[in-house]
């Protein structure tokens, strides 16, 4: 695979904004419009209870839901209906103090704008594991049943992608503290848990940042590029790229970024990461794929039942839902309202989890590991609405009498995103998902 040359794109940035780095400060000067689509792989670690997020609201599934859901049942009047038969958890559309009739926000707003797709019955129909570790590994590697694959599914996509846009840093960002499995084996992938933290910032403050009040003072980190000048071996070349990358990331000044469209990112790990990602996209950094994680969904105990309109009611699951909804909504608003145009027309977010949870709550007011689940997609070129097929809550439809069945292979949704949004020829799917039998798009994404 070709290693990106930071120097080359440095020059491009200089041409756009007269000084490298200036381009990042003023969004008007950036966004020369590579037009490259971006796929965001947002993983809900821990096994989100999809039946608690997208809830039967009326009709036969509601009847079955009420008969089987046990202590995890959410009453109709605490839900935010989105169709005749389905509703969202109230915190996907409002805060804890907001009644369900308040103006829809976040995910519910995006649903109303037909930008949110809900895929029912998603998961791994070919293989079963109720182990977080195994199931996550299988999905991230794109090889259900095999966690020993040496490359992640996104790594294999990058190899199949043909020409990728020039990258300031990398075409692939993993927002994580260690390299995500989906990008395993991708040497050029860039792993940062927080873009603000990709900097050599460990020196004592007195010699860390350049102090403009002191004539001649210069922050120690400025020296690193000089230390790696000269020398022609592969190590020196790699070091110079790293030093360039550090300088570029500092120039991007992630801390002072101003979102557009009044977007308000939540003050959370996910919020920060999505804000960093929006900045990378606006800055034409060449990012094509990004992975993010949002965990905490392993709700074996005290999962929580919403009580909208009561600001002091504690709802563990609801807090997670709101944290997710706010972050993706801010990201959507920031990019769609950009002065560069509606950038969400070339950005798609896919949200998924390793498995759903038991239909019936357990003895600890929580839910145990299950099987089928919902999967979400969000973007300007997403066909909003329901996709796939709800597997059914009647006794005959349940998997092992306790879980939602899996009716949609999660790889079909990812494959469709690659083909329809990132322009991968369908023949390339054989490499990306070697054990996927055939490609059958659901129509989640527009061509």
């Amino acid at each position, binding site marked *: 695979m070709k290693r990106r040359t930071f120097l080359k794109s440095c020059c491009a940035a200089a041409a756009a904004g007269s000084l490298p780095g200036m381009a990042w400060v003023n969004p008007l000067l950036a966004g020369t419009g590579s037009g490259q689509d971006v796929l965001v792989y947002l993983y809900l670690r821990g096994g989100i209870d999809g039946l608690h997020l997208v809830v039967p609201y009326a009709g036969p599934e509601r009847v079955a839901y009420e008969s089987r859901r046990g202590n995890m049942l959410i009453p109709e009047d605490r839900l935010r209906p989105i169709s005749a038969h389905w509703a969202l958890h109230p915190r996907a559309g409002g805060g804890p103090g907001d009644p369900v009739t308040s103006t829809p926000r976040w995910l519910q707003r995006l649903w109303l704008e037909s930008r949110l797709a809900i895929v029912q019955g998603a998961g791994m129909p070919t293989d079963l594991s109720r182990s977080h570790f195994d199931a996550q590994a299988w999905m991230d590697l794109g090889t259900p049943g095999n966690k*020993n694959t040496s490359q992640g599914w996104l790594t294999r996509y990058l190899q199949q992608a043909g020409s990728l846009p020039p990258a300031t840093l990398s075409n692939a960002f993993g927002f994580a503290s260690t390299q995500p499995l989906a990008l*395993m084996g991708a040497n050029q992938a860039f792993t940062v848990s927080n873009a603000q933290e990709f900097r*050599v910032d460990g020196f004592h403050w007195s010699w860390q940042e350049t102090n403009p009040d002191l004539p001649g003072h210069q922050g120690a980190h400025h020296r*690193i590029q000089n*230390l790696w000048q000269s*020398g022609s071996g592969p190590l020196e070349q*790699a070091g110079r790229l*790293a030093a360039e990358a550090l300088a570029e990331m500092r120039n991007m000044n992630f801390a002072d970024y101003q979102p557009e469209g009044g977007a308000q990112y939540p003050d959370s790990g996910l919020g920060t990461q999505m804000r960093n990602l929006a900045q990378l996209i606006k800055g034409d950094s060449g990012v094509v794929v990004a992975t993010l994680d949002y965990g905490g969904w392993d709700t074996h105990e005290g999962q929580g039942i919403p009580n909208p309109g009561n600001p002091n009611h504690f709802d563990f699951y609801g807090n997670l839902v709101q944290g997710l909804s706010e972050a993706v909504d801010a990201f959507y608003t920031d990019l769609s309202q950009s002065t560069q145009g509606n950038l969400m027309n070339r950005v798609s977010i896919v949200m998924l989890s390793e498995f759903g949870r038991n239909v019936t709550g357990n003895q600890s007011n929580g839910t145990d590991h299950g099987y089928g689940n919902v999967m979400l997609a969000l973007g300007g070129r997403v066909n909003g609405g329901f996709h796939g097929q709800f597997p059914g809550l009647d006794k005959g439809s349940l998997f092992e009498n306790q879980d939602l069945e899996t009716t949609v292979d999660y790889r079909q949704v990812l494959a469709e995103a690659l083909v329809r949004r990132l322009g991968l020829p369908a023949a390339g799917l054989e490499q990306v998902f070697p054990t996927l039998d055939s490609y059958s798009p659901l129509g989640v994404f527009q061509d």
Partner: protein
Amino acid sequence: MDQFAGGTSAVSPAGDGDRIFADRFVDQTQEERGFARRVLERFSYGTRPEDISHFLSLGASSAERLANWAAQQLAWQSIADSACQARIDAAGYQTLDKSITQLWADHVRGSQTGWPERYFPVAETDAARIIRAVYSRRQLYEMLVEFWHDHFNVAGWEFSIAPVFVQHDRDAIRPNALGNFREMLEAVAKTTAMLYYLDNRANRSGGYNENWARELMELHTLGVEVYFPGAFHGAIPLGDDGLAIGYSDADVYDVARCFTGWTVRNGHWQFPQTPEYDTGEFFYHSSWHEGGSKFVVGRWLMPAGQQEAHEVMDILCQHRATARHICRKLCRRFIDDEPPESLVESAAEIWREQWQAPDQIAQVMAHIINSDAVLQGQGSKVRRPFELMTSCMRKTGAEIQPHHYQGWQPYGEMFSRFQQSGHGGFRWPAPDGYPDTATRWTSASVLGQTWRLLSRLPELRMPNDGPFLLSVQELTLQGLPNEEQHTATNLVDWWLERLIGASVLPQRRLELINFLRQNAPADQPLNLTTNPPYGNWSAGNMSAHYTPVRLRAMVSMIMMLPEFHRR
């Protein structure tokens, strides 16, 4: 390519002197020191002046000293290491001496199953391995321990593995790291961690799980180089030893059948519901064993219960492909990413001839260390982040007692930054272990995060203005005791010698001197002793501005040099 030829930075800052000329006429002592350092950098976690002195005392020629040093290090049990052990004892770790049944009782079944207590066994093993890398006198042995942890990788921090990880490290890897591979393999096959990680605990008649069997052949023994996908039994040619030269999926399935019933006393519902079936130990559950004969790499195995797996391991351990596969990895670890094939072959011969010797691995390592490749200084390796961190600690006289879960300062921050390098202890998820080639460790992401760690190391100190982990100030004042010696040039050269000990490019050295001297002449002493450890604000004169801090920053910069990244 050889960064270590010629003199030290002080003698030959250009570092590109005429090799032939240097070989003939340079002071013999410099040449000998250079060789000692090169060997020690390659086969230890970092060279200190006392290590070089010791090496030089071991004989009359480089070859003799090398042979003696190797013999000493390979007889690792004869090296007294009580000081290192005392440090581990003093750290107060609670789980390192627990038996597997105690680990299971306490951290899987008992009162210490929550966070973080459940993770103490892996966390404390991780902390102890840093202490050992920095302080143990059995340096080569500790490097082999790390090698075998990669070879027999398990995801140490995984929920089911973390509470029993101590056993895998202490009872399988460490006793055999320089011993006999066949013994290590069987010990590994029986650790609770491995039985969980590669799922053999669930491998039973009528419900095969091939995960262990496949990785056993692909990664642990024969190697994927001799995998013949889809070949039928009997379709792979036989070698001169009568064994098939490789393996196929059919072999994987039959090996899996041989290992059926190798499981864990984990209270499985099919076991008798009595306490002795819930101890966390390995056991062979005969009613889960698949009957019938099996066919493995060209040889029939008659039904023999538990013995079948022993026979499989015997076959795999004496196989030519195993010898080559593992010796190539060893040579890659210690010589070069692309090691000389002749050395791989000669090492593999010894490996195979000595497959039953109790010191098989030590014999192979002796061959590799005393090879021409080492004597002639061939090859180049890039330090992985763990080697960078521990080398910094070793060379700066660090005083460390790492703990996970005991606050942010200093070890929470140290581990956080270290893990972001992508090389956190026992965190590699896949069974192939952390990679061992430079390309994997020189991406912008890895290098950037590693430098972020290195920029912090000299500033880390114990809480409440306690001592710094690295003894930068103390070593400086010991090495250069007179204040008039504290010129930027002297300080840079002294630390270059201490940390790298070989020539660095002159412009890099100049860059370091310019940073340290600021507006002072390079030969004017700097004030390191007023108001340590930080010094004073000095707006009008940068050379007096927080000078001890600037010294530590300069030491960090040496740690970030390309020359320091090679070993």
